[in-house]
């Protein structure tokens, strides 16, 4: 549905995005993760034909952004960073205007209007001026605008920003319900959001794609060791040494709570069984034993923080991860 090939955007000498390549299948929800200034918004602006790429091609629903921008724009619903609302219009007037710009009219427009107002629960404010609405409502009006013409492709720049927790959950549910029939790209800072809503995550940093996979696969791939947390009732002095003797255990650290130990094991080995046996045979009192998986947050920090020792990690990730995008990885930092 969306096919981005090697796009580069330069502002003078500054390269905002550098040879970015990815694609989104029909019905897929893709999250765009990255720190501020990573190039998320620039990429989205290129996808929506707001600005042209310096190099590379973008095809949306089979149409090239450079050659047939109107056809692309017709098939995209776009929510920019700031909800693009006119404060002097009421919600209904605004959405009517949006529909008219998209060539809708008559009964077609009325039913689309009712549907999108219903979907975003704007019924109670539909006759109020947008200028008098709260940030959360404006954000929802912006979303209603993007959904109004039921586009096959939705591009949402931080869709849940400014919403309260209940609304955030509702919007996530809404986005999930769109998956399957719509292709969605959303950018976000909020990592659990990506895990909750998206099938695939693209992590972008410094204008380059540094990782692209499902949230689970990403954390699995970046794990250098397995971590197991053990909570014990009694805490003899020699337990640390005894645990280290188990073959495969690399290190043992004290945990965050009293009685808790973090055991680092060699990659690919599940030592829970052995650890349990040692603990039970020594009568230390086993209260809890579980593996700790890497959260997307850890993955994100590891990939976007430019620190010593990181480059190898990146190269490793990219070499194993990107089947479709070799160019963007060869020169990764």
């Amino acid at each position, binding site marked *: 549905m969306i096919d981005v090939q090697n796009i580069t955007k330069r502002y003078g000498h500054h390269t905002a995005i550098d040879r970015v390549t990815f694609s989104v299948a029909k019905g897929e929800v893709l999250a765009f993760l990255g720190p501020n200034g990573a190039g998320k918004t620039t990429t989205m602006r290129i996808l*929506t034909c707001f600005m042209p790429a310096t190099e590379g091609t973008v095809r949306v629903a089979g149409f090239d952004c450079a050659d047939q921008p109107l056809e692309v724009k017709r098939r995209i619903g776009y929510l*920019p960073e700031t909800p693009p*609302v006119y404060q*002097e*219009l009421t919600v209904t007037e605004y959405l009517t205007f949006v529909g008219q*710009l998209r060539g809708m009219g008559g009964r077609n427009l009325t039913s689309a209007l009712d549907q999108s107002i219903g979907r975003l629960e704007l019924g109670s404010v539909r006759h109020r001026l947008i200028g008098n609405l709260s940030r959360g409502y404006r954000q929802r009006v912006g979303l209603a605008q993007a959904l109004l013409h039921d586009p096959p492709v939705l591009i949402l720049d931080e869709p849940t920003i400014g919403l309260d927790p209940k609304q955030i959950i509702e919007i996530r549910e809404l986005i999930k319900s769109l998956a399957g029939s719509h292709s969605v790209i959303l950018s976000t800072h909020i990592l659990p959001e990506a895990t909750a809503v998206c099938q695939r995550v693209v992590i972008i940093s410094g204008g380059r794609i540094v990782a692209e996979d499902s949230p689970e696969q990403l954390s699995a791939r970046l794990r250098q060791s397995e971590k197991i947390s053990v909570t014990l009732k009694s805490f003899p002095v020699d337990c640390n040494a005894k645990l280290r003797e188990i073959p495969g255990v690399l290190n043992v650290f004290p945990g965050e709570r009293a009685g808790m130990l973090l055991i680092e094991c060699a990659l690919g080995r599940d030592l829970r069984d052995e650890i349990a046996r040692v603990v039970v045979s020594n009568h230390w009192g086993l209260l809890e034993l579980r593996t700790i998986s890497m959260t997307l947050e850890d993955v994100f920090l590891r990939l976007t923080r430019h620190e010593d020792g990181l480059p190898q990690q990146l190269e490793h990730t990219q070499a194993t991860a990107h089947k479709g995008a070799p160019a963007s990885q060869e020169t990764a930092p």
Partner: protein
Amino acid sequence: MTPVQAIIAKELRGYFVSPIVYVVGAVFLLIFGFLSYLYIVFAGAQAIQLMQMQGGQASINLNDLVFRNLFASMRFVLLIILPILTMRLFAEERKLRTFEFLMTSPIGIHEIVLGKFVSILLIYFGLLGITSLVPTVLMLFSEFDWNPVLTGYLGMALLGALFLAVGLFASALTENQIVAAFVGFGILLTFWLISGLGALLGDTTAGHIISYVSFMEHYDRLIRGLIDTSDLMYFGSGLLLMLFLTHRVVESTRWK
């Protein structure tokens, strides 16, 4: 409703819920009324003087004494007031980040420019329509030739349309409305003042070209009651050029 009509309707609504049209419209009408009053009183004083000198009934020419002066004075009023009306058209969209929404809607830039221009043109023509009360009331009490008045109105309509197009262009250049108003005002004032340079150069090629470029002599002919195709061409081509430049400026913002 076509996209252009939708933009026109939205802009008109935007103008009428903001105080700008009421304030600017009120000032415009007040100045027009006040100037009319001054010129009529002045014409009346001249008539009394003539009567005393010649005795009996003196005939005065309202076209020369009232309307021509009035239309000539309105140039300056339009030059100051119209950039204030147009300053918000693009600058506000950019400030409020709705510009990106417009540019990603499936409509052409020419439709956006046209919609915005027509909306402000309609407001301006509405204001001109209200000022027609002055000649209508005068007609009840005196006699004058309507034709030069109508060409004068044609002149004001054409000059105003050109000024609005310049204002629209200035608004597309920046996201600051005050800057947009001043840039519009500056461009118009420059085109006014170069007519003085043209007069200074006199009967030379450069003098003719500069005089032709300024709107002054074209407008002067219209308010004197002369309709010349070259003047109509001047206003028409100037208008199209400004709209074209606006289109280019809006298009170029995509590249920045």
